[in-house]
């Protein structure tokens, strides 16, 4: 799978996950730049769930202590932080 298709596939999965948590959206209707924390679409409890989902997608554990502020602000930011940048999350 090329990089762009991989990016699209992961963001689609994240979008579907966010939609599943929030009654206001369908799976393919969550904009990738939507401020999901600021607009309270995702709560702090759901972030815990999101971390587990990200671990599932990445196939390795994430240590929340290593997560930078703003990492969960949008789907774009989540992708950038957990699938592009070389952070030592594990």
């Amino acid at each position, binding site marked *: 799978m090329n990089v762009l298709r991989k990016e699209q596939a992961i963001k689609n999965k994240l979008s579907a996950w966010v939609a599943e948590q929030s009654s206001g959206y369908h799976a393919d209707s969550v904009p990738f730049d939507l401020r999901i924390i600021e607009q309270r679409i995702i709560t702090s409890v759901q*972030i*815990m769930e999101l971390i*587990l989902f990200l*671990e*599932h997608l990445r196939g390795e554990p994430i240590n929340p202590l290593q*997560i930078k502020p703003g990492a969960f602000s949008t789907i774009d930011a989540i992708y950038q932080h957990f699938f592009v940048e070389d952070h030592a999350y594990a």
Partner: protein
Amino acid sequence: MDNVVTLSQKLSKASVKRYSNPYLEFDWPEVLSEDSWWFSPELSSLCGTAVYDVLPAEQQQRLAFWELVNFFSLNIHGEKALLQGLAKRLYSRWPTEISEYLHHFLGEENKHMTLFGTFCMRYANKVYPSKAYSLNENHIQSVEDFLFFARVVIFEEFVDYYNLYMAKDERLHPLCRAINQYHHNDESRHLAFGRKITQQLFESHAGDWGEDTVNGIRRYLGDYIQATWKEYYNPWVYKDAGFNDFYKTYLTAWRHESQKQLRQKISSHCFSFFVTSGILAEEPVV
């Protein structure tokens, strides 16, 4: 705070009387026996699910070992937060007698963490990381104090159910029973203090907080309860226990009706306190 002071004095005396040295009390075997039970099967996060019922006994025992490592890990994370909060409140706004008891509370919690950490590092070579992630939320001091002790009560009520159950469970390895018993012995005092000061802080301040703040507190506590329970369901436990699709196993476990009933049953004593005190309007569904 008069009734909290009186209780603090009583609990300080009890802590002095029951002062213990876990470094001398525990024998740590070089190697653990693999055919032992390390976690009561009825408390397993997979108990009641179809996947658990068909597991051979040896794999149930392997899962039990990793569930214990997860239980001790979540205790470590909970107690780390507790130590920070207790230390912050030493010699602050309240009478000295309360600080005197906080010293015992801190010391005892530190000893518990030593036991949990020793077990995890010696036999599992790791402590599972917590998945708790806090969004920055600022509260006024009285709300912050109240929420801190309310979190203490919730966290300790849940772990104490497990401690007491496993301390009495004759199927479990003696080391596992002894650590659970040791923890329970101190937790009964910590819970008595936690409940008293939580109730006192709520009664003293709720009238000034106003309806919006009280409703916000109730939402926060509901979220905290959910987050606390989520820590008991860890996909990496299932991976270490040999499950292939460990994320799916996690989702199955968390959503299973028998697990919802187990959580509700374990939470009932805690919820009863919060509802009776008027802190929560109704028992949350977990």
